[in-house]
């Protein structure tokens, strides 16, 4: 009996009745603050690779040259919509939801150092990492497909059957090398710190 009374009371609420008489499913809209896949803005990309450095998903974002200009490109199946690349880009090339606006408001500052470690047991000296490294290719365009180089200015090169690090400080942490190593022998650690510039 009590439950019947409960049901009657439940259905006699004005909110229920008005909803019943004007039954309508609200249209599905994506709210403007939803953190969607990042999109590019009008700003110019300087190929600093900060976006690739911070990205936690494998090969979600790559910076490529299309028709003479560098642009970041996002692979939707890989991107997890974390929005870290939007926060990391110093030129505000990327935008997603309200992250870009918040970042400007907070005057977010990202600083980082990068450390490469090579496992000598699993590195077989194939040179993939030295070849794909965008900084290496910029420094020595004539870098061989075997990863050897005559330049002493490159980040790393293959030397006597193993990959050797020469200039760790030039690394941008983009982890392209990590993604192209067949043995997971090379690992790039990104020591990144984010602080609010304006409010501190």
């Amino acid at each position, binding site marked *: 009996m*009590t439950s019947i009374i409960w049901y009657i009371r439940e259905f006699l609420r004005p909110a229920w009745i008005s909803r019943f008489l004007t039954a309508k499913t609200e249209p599905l809209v994506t709210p403007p603050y939803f953190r969607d896949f990042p999109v590019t803005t009008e700003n110019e990309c300087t190929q600093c690779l900060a976006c690739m450095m911070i990205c*936690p998903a494998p090969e979600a974002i790559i910076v490529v040259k299309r028709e003479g200009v560098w642009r970041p490109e996002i692979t939707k199946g890989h991107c*997890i919509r974390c929005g870290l690349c939007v926060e990391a880009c110093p030129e505000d090339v990327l935008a997603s939801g309200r992250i870009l606006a918040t970042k400007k408001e*907070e005057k977010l500052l990202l600083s980082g150092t990068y450390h490469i470690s090579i496992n000598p047991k699993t590195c077989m000296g194939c040179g993939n990492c030295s070849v794909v490294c965008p900084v290496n290719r910029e420094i020595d365009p004539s870098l061989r497909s075997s990863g050897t180089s005559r330049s002493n200015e490159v980040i790393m090169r293959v030397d006597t059957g193993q990959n050797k690090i020469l200039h760790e400080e030039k690394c941008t942490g983009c982890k392209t090398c990590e993604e192209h190593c067949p043995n997971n022998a090379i690992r790039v650690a990104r020591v990144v710190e984010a*602080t*609010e510039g304006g409010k*501190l």
Partner: protein
Amino acid sequence: MKKTVDISLPVGPVHPLFKEPCRIKCETRGEYVLSAEVELGYVKKGIERIMRGRPWQEVMFLAERVCGICSVIHNYTFIEAVEKISGIIPPERAAYLRVIVNELDRMQSHLLANYSYCYTIEHETLAMYVLNLRETVMDQLELITGARVTCAYIIPGGVRWDLPDDRAESLKSALDHIDSELTRFVRIFETGPFIALRSKGIGILTKEAAEAAYAVGPTARASGISVDCRSDHPTYQALGFSPVVRHEGDNYARIMARFDEVFQSVNLIRSALLKMQPGPVRGGGVIQAGSIQYRMEAPRGELLYDLVTDEYGRILEIAIQTPSIMNIQVCAHEMLTDAESAADITSIFISSDPCIACTER
């Protein structure tokens, strides 16, 4: 004593009432359940192995993906663990914002658990009401963090975004809405005679059995054990937290404990909003080498992260202990044994809020 087993009754792995695959094997005599065994292993991810060797930036996102229902607590626990290693203290406002997001996540997790229970006992009306209310919580989570699940809100040294006043206002009105609606739903649950028939005195877990089997979370708290890792957390202490404890130990108590905890979360968020002072939310800080065992209270109980980092913030070793495994075992060996009806198997199992994804990681 020799037991006569009529039939070995399998429930699952694919079952309309289970959110995730697992199999319960019950030895029954007629309707009476003599013993039960839970078989897991259908959704193993091996996520701890994937985490090893990766920098914290990546592990943070992997940690969130251990469990889809309670992702915030994994983010929270992992980040606080690495912060403890490196001696980073988040700004005060960020600490409160973390609690707010974590409690919103707990609310949606508990509402989902209670939805599943109501659905399991065939009270679909109430189930849909509760599920609808969960959407209000999810909307608030999305408003604050930008995503409904896997929010990636908590990072070392603080949180990623502040909560401006307009969003705080919308959060407050949502809390009022939840408070009034849920009061109504809880009354329906408390006074429903059919609900009582399916819930009161069913699946009893005594305090002794819960202690012996190390039950955790609302399952333990509904059996009169006052365990809650939030009592040891400084931010929760500042908010005057004390665990919700019930003593009946049956299905009804477990569901009511979760409803009570939703109200408690509402109040925690309200007091956090009151206590919060304007200030920075992102303090920065670099992750250093060290090792730690860090535990916090997930919606389902105690969650433990045991990890080792190197000097560049990479995770060398990691082991995660999730709460559900304890509750699933205690459910199989204590609650399901001696159940009077085979129809109660699923409702007892669901009342312990099993999360298979985080159990198998």
